[in-house]
């Protein structure tokens, strides 16, 4: 055989469909009168470094799409995202393999986790017009038509963090301590742009995941003594870095990019240092916020231990929902139709979870870029361990930034 099968067809209401859309109802949504749209999920679910985050994203999106179905589905269809879930072990090759396996059976991807992994399927996503939702905030996604990004990317988030450091913490020197790869490099690039723009001394150090691998970063921080360190690492690594530098007498501040935080840090040996030195930047508000979206999420996920992985998964799903709705409206639920719908999205209704105007996928990357982020501090008693310091703001650097290419390459 070869090839993926599915030829374009029309359903009874005249909507065009091809891949991943069936007239038969979804296996377990309980609406026998509706057809089914299948969405794929490729995530890091067993051995990889992001397992903890990934599981909550998946669970949250399950709840998200269930809510969509409960509210009547989209264009006479229910959404199924449980049939095609695959584990990529954070390995590009496995990612590609499981993608190949599911690609003929899904209309779009509601999650493709990781940058090198997603990069491994990107040419295929483009050529098959498979709209997909990343589980990351890389500035690169702003330039990929098929990839639906939400909120401020790492680059912008760090720009705002540095601006905050300069304006509110009076910092004169900044150091970026980061993982290599899209996550850390993107954030470090933003921090650098902002530091240079604001005339701060800037330095940067790369580090790797693993508790006993932070020695280099710690040595670098302790010897350079920057006023503020912008951290883009994992939670345990952050605990080691903040804890050990403090133990060695470092008194500067840390601002962590969103994936750096985990409320478990408040119970770690580094807790006191973290409470004293640590700030947390974020693209959107945490679990416990009052907004229609947050409330809906908490209702849909009642019973889970609060964690902002859930929040992220939930927010990320909105643009895909909007695109599907638009496509249904256009009576074209083919892949091409969905991509076309994305091109028509002037804004996405995030139910208050992101500021007005976010999700303008019709514009150029510079136009659609979300430039607002927030700053939090660790605070015991809050559901995810952080309390607000500075509400959505756009720092001067991000404000004037011309977004013409990804921040890192």
């Amino acid at each position, binding site marked *: 055989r070869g090839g993926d099968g599915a030829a374009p067809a029309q359903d009874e209401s005249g909507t065009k469909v091809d891949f991943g859309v069936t007239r038969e109802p979804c296996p377990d949504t309980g609406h026998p009168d509706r057809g089914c749209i299948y969405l794929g999920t490729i995530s890091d679910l067993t051995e990889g470094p992001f*397992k903890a985050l990934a599981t909550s994203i998946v669970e949250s999106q399950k709840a998200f799409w269930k809510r969509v179905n409960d509210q009547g589905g989209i264009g006479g269809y229910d959404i199924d995202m449980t049939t095609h879930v695959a584990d990529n072990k954070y390995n590009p090759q496995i990612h590609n393999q499981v993608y190949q396996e599911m690609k003929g059976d899904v209309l779009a991807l509601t999650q493709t986790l990781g940058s090198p992994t997603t990069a491994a399927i990107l040419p295929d996503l483009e050529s098959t017009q498979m709209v997909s939702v990343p589980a990351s905030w890389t500035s690169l996604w702003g330039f990929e038509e098929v990839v639906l990004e939400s909120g401020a990317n790492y680059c912008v988030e760090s720009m705002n963090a540095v601006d905050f450091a300069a304006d509110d913490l009076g910092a004169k020197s900044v150091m970026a301590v980061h993982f290599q790869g899209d996550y850390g490099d993107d954030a470090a690039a933003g921090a650098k742009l902002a530091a240079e723009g604001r005339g701060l001394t800037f330095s940067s150090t790369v580090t790797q995941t693993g508790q*006993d691998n932070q020695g280099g970063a710690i040595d*670098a921080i302790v010897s350079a003594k920057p006023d503020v360190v912008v951290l883009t690492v994992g939670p345990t690594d952050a605990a080691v870095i903040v804890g050990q530098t403090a*133990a060695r007498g470092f008194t500067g501040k840390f601002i962590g990019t969103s994936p750096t935080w985990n409320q478990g840090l408040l119970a770690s*040996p580094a807790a006191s240092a973290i409470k004293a030195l640590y700030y947390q930047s974020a693209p959107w508000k945490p679990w416990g916020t009052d907004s229609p979206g947050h409330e809906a999420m908490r209702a849909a996920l009642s019973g889970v231990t609060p964690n902002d992985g859930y929040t992220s998964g939930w927010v990320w799903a909105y643009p895909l929902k909007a695109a599907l709705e638009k496509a249904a409206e256009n009576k074209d639920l083919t892949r091409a139709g969905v991509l076309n719908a994305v091109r028509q999205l002037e804004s996405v209704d995030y139910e208050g979870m992101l500021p007005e105007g976010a999700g303008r996928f019709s514009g150029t990357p510079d136009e659609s870029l979300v430039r607002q982020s927030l700053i939090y501090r660790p605070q015991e008693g809050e559901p995810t361990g952080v309390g607000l310091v500075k509400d959505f703001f756009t720092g001067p650097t991000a404000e004037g930034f011309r977004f013409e290419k990804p921040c890192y390459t």
Partner: protein
Amino acid sequence: MSEFLQSLVRGLGTGSVYALLALGFVIIHKSTRVISFAQPAFMLAGAVLVAHLSPGVGFFLAVPVAALVIAALALGVERTVLRPMIGKPVFVVAIITIGVDVVVRVVTNAFIGLDVLPVGDPWGLTTVSLLGVEVQQRYLVMLATTVAVVVALFAFFRFSRTGLAMRAVAHDQEVALAQGIRVGSVFALSWALAGGLAALAGVFVATGAGVDQQLWVVALKALPAVILGGLDSLGGAVAGGLAVGVVESLVGTYQGDVAPWLGPNFALVAPYALMLVVLLVRPHGLFGAKEVERL
């Protein structure tokens, strides 16, 4: 100078954890000639177990309990999976231990949950001043524990028949059997010991921040340590472990100034570079026994 001393002490601290891990590898190798790649999983399991136990029973009870439980787990693995492989090619057995590692680790991961898990140790990041050098308490504890464990092991191997029996089993199982040595018991003992040591090491690694899924990676540092020391030498394992810790720490402190062209984080692979250099000169590590061969 104090920078140097601090770096050295930190190196010795982490090095003692590597030494504990390396001892596990060496003990298993001594009796089976196999490198057990299941050690990382046992280490992770030990740390996770302590994290779950210590809120209930307290850290100091949780540690021995966890070490025993993991020893029992290792024993079970040996009994079911390794026992049938007695006398089979060592590399096949090594691959089997990798399979075991995957299984144990995946199962353990399920108990880590979404948040970083603290192990509940009393030391935190408190430092004490020792001869003018600021040292974290936990490093001192690690070092002391390692010394105690090593002394106990040495005594055990020196004064019991078992040490010799282990070596006999390792070199020729048929000969050992013919001398009335219970090969199975020797295997079981070495796996249990190694499992317990791994659990202990896991707890120590996790004292600084907490347990996460990637904790097991630390166990790989024991590999250059055992090779450096010599695969069949307990003393070598300790020396190798400490050397790896110290080299890592000192390179981390000074390489940025001395040899920046090696790239950031060269410290993390420095033990491997050291291992390559040492083995060029001594093909059996610093204290390993030469292969005895003649025509």
